[in-house]
């Protein structure tokens, strides 16, 4: 009986840890950026 509880306890503890760690909550799965330019030919230098 004692031995049989071990795997269940193990799973419960594992799930609890997983629930409270930042991996499951805080860290995003995916990250990327879009970078863009517009009006590049519109750049005008002041003449004076």
């Amino acid at each position, binding site marked *: 009986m004692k031995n049989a509880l071990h795997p269940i306890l193990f799973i419960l503890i594992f799930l609890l840890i997983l629930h409270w760690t930042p991996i499951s909550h805080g860290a995003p799965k*995916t990250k*990327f950026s879009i*970078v863009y*330019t517009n009006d590049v*030919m519109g750049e005008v230098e002041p003449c*004076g």
Partner: protein
Amino acid sequence: MKKEGRKILLFDTGNVLFRKPLQTENKKRDALLRVDLLIQSYNEMGYDVVNVGEKDLMMGVKFLLDLTGTAKFPFISTNLLDKKTRKGIFKPYVIKEMAGLKIGIIGLIDDQYESALQEKEPGLTISDPISTSKALTRSLREYCDLIVILSQLGESLDKKLARADSEIDLILGGGGEAKKAVNERVNEVPIYRLEPRGGYLGRIDYSFMDTKKPIKFSISTERDELEKRLERLIVRTTQIKTEMSKSGKQEEMKIKELKFLESKQKEVEKTFLSFEEKNFYRHLSIPVQLSVNDDPKIMKGVEHYRAESAKIYKPKVVSPPSKDLSEKEMIARIPKDSLFVGAITCKKCHEVNYRNWLKTKHAKASQTIVASPKYAQEECLMCHSTGYGKIGEYATVDEIPFFLKGVQCEACHGSGRGHPGKGELERKVTLGVCRNCHTKDQSPTFNYVAYLEKIGCRISK
């Protein structure tokens, strides 16, 4: 950013090749050199997609199609079509994969250019951007997690598009008459556009916790305010760094302000982390000045362009007068075939006006650009000398014919050869004449009445 290992997609919303109509053969040759430089630089920077704008078609659609051979990125246009087949001339869209997500990119051009386009290219047509986009986004949604529009529609059409098509996830704006940057959400679709006249880089950082379709984002006014605050901090930081770099001084007050701004920036960045628990994006508009270092390979290309461009503009040789010449002798040295005769000739009958003009900024207009680099002088000479383009094109202030330095009588009133009696001399200098040079960019404080007073001229209607 790519070198730092960040996953990024790099886009341009279009109108990248040409700026103004190519009026002379020299301007055309110069523009072609710039196009080479631009393609080479965009290849080097690793642009992923560039939208087609109406100015990109200035040299014809074939010219642009030929460029696709040297460009490592695709030019796209969803609504620029072959009139007969109704098929796209360029790729109508591109799908890019980024961190396991599929991103569909669509390029739109404003159909108000349809008639101007057909004069040059009767085989082409521009379909209605909104209905064309709607039809495409519906089918793309099946394959794509995000749909991005690269737009040349202008601010109001961008908003109309956002209201009409909720499948869109992001609109990056360009085209139309831009007076300021755009950063707003319409129908939950974010629309971004950078400050006009270049000089900024836009960046949208995406962060996903849940990539199940359809992707939803957490949006709030608190987050928006934070984003604007961060942007203000970055702009001010760059301003101070630029000022310090220009002056070469390490002023204590500025160093203190810089430290304060940087600590505030870190605080805001930390607060942003709390939003990352949900799907989240944030936009930053970054001044390029000091934030990005010059790439040596691109700078080499720029130097090559400048050297080749300087060879294009060769002045008509007009020997400069010796200092000891009398006015009469100077007038005698003005070529008889020159359309422009110079203020010194006008003086013979309009001495009071001439003496008055000598005291104005117009008389010294060529001198104000002497300190600018050579390539900038080429850009400025059209408005900082008289008769530019009509009597030849020159590259530097030193090459201006001696009798046409400064903004003289003929710059506003028209060339004086044949006057009085014949010739194209106009007496009326209307607001439109002044606006040829006193543009909003170059002369933001221009006021017709006040400025006429400064040069001692009357209002013309």
